[in-house]
């Protein structure tokens, strides 16, 4: 086999010879590259319609260029800024509740010494992560709805009047955060629990012998040891502030609370798919992608600046 290769490529360059040796690997990569070109890179070319007045009958190539007109239009649109504000509000509120809670729960789990008990509780806490958003939204509706919702039934039982969890703007944000925290908190502890197992036991021992109380050991031993992980996770979460999953706001949202539930991704969906405004929808998507990349680079720089690992 190798002899044939040598003869065939006697005249060609060294690189080609090397590449021929790896022919099977390249053959394996053909479907992979084809996949990425078709479903990832051609759509990237499709972004050009953000700078065109897209017309379905003319297609992507023939539609006339309009420069940044589309952007000028969306930057003037009230709904666009509203969707950005809502995205940031929901993300920041969720982060503010979920981030510290996840660490606290991880620390609590870490204190449990009965291994069987720990395993079972971990299994239970991870469970919501595996349930689809449609199911979560369905359950949430059953629990939180005004009439006949379980929680309001219980409140009514105590003589408290029903709370509009799903139909009042502020309460809706509350419900949204609750659902997210419920779904993600257990799963989020995994990374911290892993970091906690790598804390050197002799540090605790030394602190104990020096008379440190349980709380002092937590503050002066545990937290400093997992601080790098905490900082990295925080920076990572902050760098994702402009992107938001479409599932939760779309499924939990309804017409009454659209003023707080319409986020960038749902807006892109409604504008693009439901109203068939392809150019505008794509322009918003592009704006979001570019903002995301900028935030990511800034966050990475910042992480390195304060002496932590970068996130890129």
């Amino acid at each position, binding site marked *: 086999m190798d002899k044939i290769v040598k003869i065939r490529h006697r005249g060609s360059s060294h690189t080609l010879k090397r590449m021929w040796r*790896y022919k*099977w*690997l390249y053959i*394996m*990569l053909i479907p*992979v*590259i084809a*996949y*990425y070109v*078709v*479903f990832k890179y*051609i*759509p*990237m*070319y*499709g*972004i050009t*319609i953000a700078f065109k007045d897209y017309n379905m009958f003319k297609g*992507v190539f023939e539609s006339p260029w309009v420069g940044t007109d589309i952007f000028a239009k969306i930057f003037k649109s009230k709904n666009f800024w509203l969707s950005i504000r809502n995205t940031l509000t929901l993300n920041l509120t969720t982060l503010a509740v979920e981030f510290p809670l996840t660490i606290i729960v991880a620390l609590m789990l870490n*204190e*449990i*010494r009965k291994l069987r008990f720990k395993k*079972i*509780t971990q*299994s*239970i*806490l*991870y*469970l919501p992560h*595996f349930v*689809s*958003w*449609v*199911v979560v939204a*369905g*359950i949430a*509706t*059953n*629990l939180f709805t005004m*009439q006949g919702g*379980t929680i309001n*039934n219980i409140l009514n039982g105590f003589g408290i009047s029903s709370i509009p969890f799903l139909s009042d703007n502020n309460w809706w944000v509350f419900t949204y955060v609750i659902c997210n925290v419920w779904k993600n908190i257990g799963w989020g502890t*995994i990374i911290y629990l*892993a970091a906690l197992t790598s804390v050197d*036991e002799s540090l*605790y*021992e030394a602190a104990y012998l020096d008379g440190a109380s*349980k709380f002092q050991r937590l503050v002066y031993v545990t937290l400093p040891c997992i601080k790098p992980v905490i900082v990295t996770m925080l920076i990572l979460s902050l760098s994702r502030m402009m992107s938001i999953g*479409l599932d939760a706001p779309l499924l939990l949202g309804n017409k009454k609370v659209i003023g707080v539930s319409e986020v960038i991704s749902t807006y*892109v*969906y409604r504008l*693009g*798919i439901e109203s068939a405004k*392809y150019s505008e*929808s*794509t322009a918003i*998507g*592009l704006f*979001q*992608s570019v903002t995301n990349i900028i935030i990511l680079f800034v966050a990475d720089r910042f992480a390195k600046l304060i002496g932590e690992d970068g996130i890129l």
Partner: protein
Amino acid sequence: MSVRRIRKKKKLTIGSVILYLLIILLAFICLYPFLNVLSYSLSGYNAVLSGRVTFYPIDLDFGAYKEILARSQIWLSMRTTVLITLMGTATSLFLTTLAAYALSRKDLPGKKFISGMILFTMYFSGGMIPTFMVVRGVGLYDTLGALFIPQAISVFNFIIMRTFFREMPESLEEAAKIDGASDLQVLTRIILPLSLAIIATMGLFYAVGYWNSYFDALLYIQNPDKFTLQLRLRSLLFGEELNNSAASLEGGGTQVMTQSLKMATVAVSTIPILIVYPWLQKYFVKGVMLGSIKG
């Protein structure tokens, strides 16, 4: 040893009692919504109507399940979802393994470029509409293929797998090469049999993703006969479908009937996940740890 002693002493303090109680409360909060679903789906009509159902079924009644399982649409959707999950997982595993194996070889010319091409899609993408146009353009719109082909490779899983392949001892490959094996043979005869655990993990990652995904179906599927389970569930929970049919069946008091029916549907679509959950959880946690090592 002294660590042990320290731990022993701690055990009976008030602090640890509170700790255990809090953890139990937390576990209860995680489980309660599922309990709520079961209670509603199994309760009698009047119990639901009067709002007495909270923690357990009242006037045990399997009517909601009978009604929901008698609907051919549910079975159709279940079939579609099973099909998508199987085909999607197979396609994803195939492509991810090829990519991860080929790009884990150290001296492959062009490796950097191709890896870069894959990783770049993590940070930048064409977005919803341009992707939608391509999927429609290649004729996948309103076909089941649209539900797994356009998102076949997850970059995250690719990184995990590549890391795994990279860490395999090189001597294995070299020995096989000396015996005249091609790269393809090295992959199928040597690497794959040693990677069953990681492949199973990746397979579970993909399978759960496909089972739970609904947005792709919302985007690409129009024909109601091709609705996946999640999409069907969505239209039953939040759409008009169920309300109308229940109204025709029950006459008055439809709202309550639908509550039981809705929760029975939720239960039916979640139970398969719960059945495989013990395996899922074990492998997933491993996978997350592998992923956090970062490629």
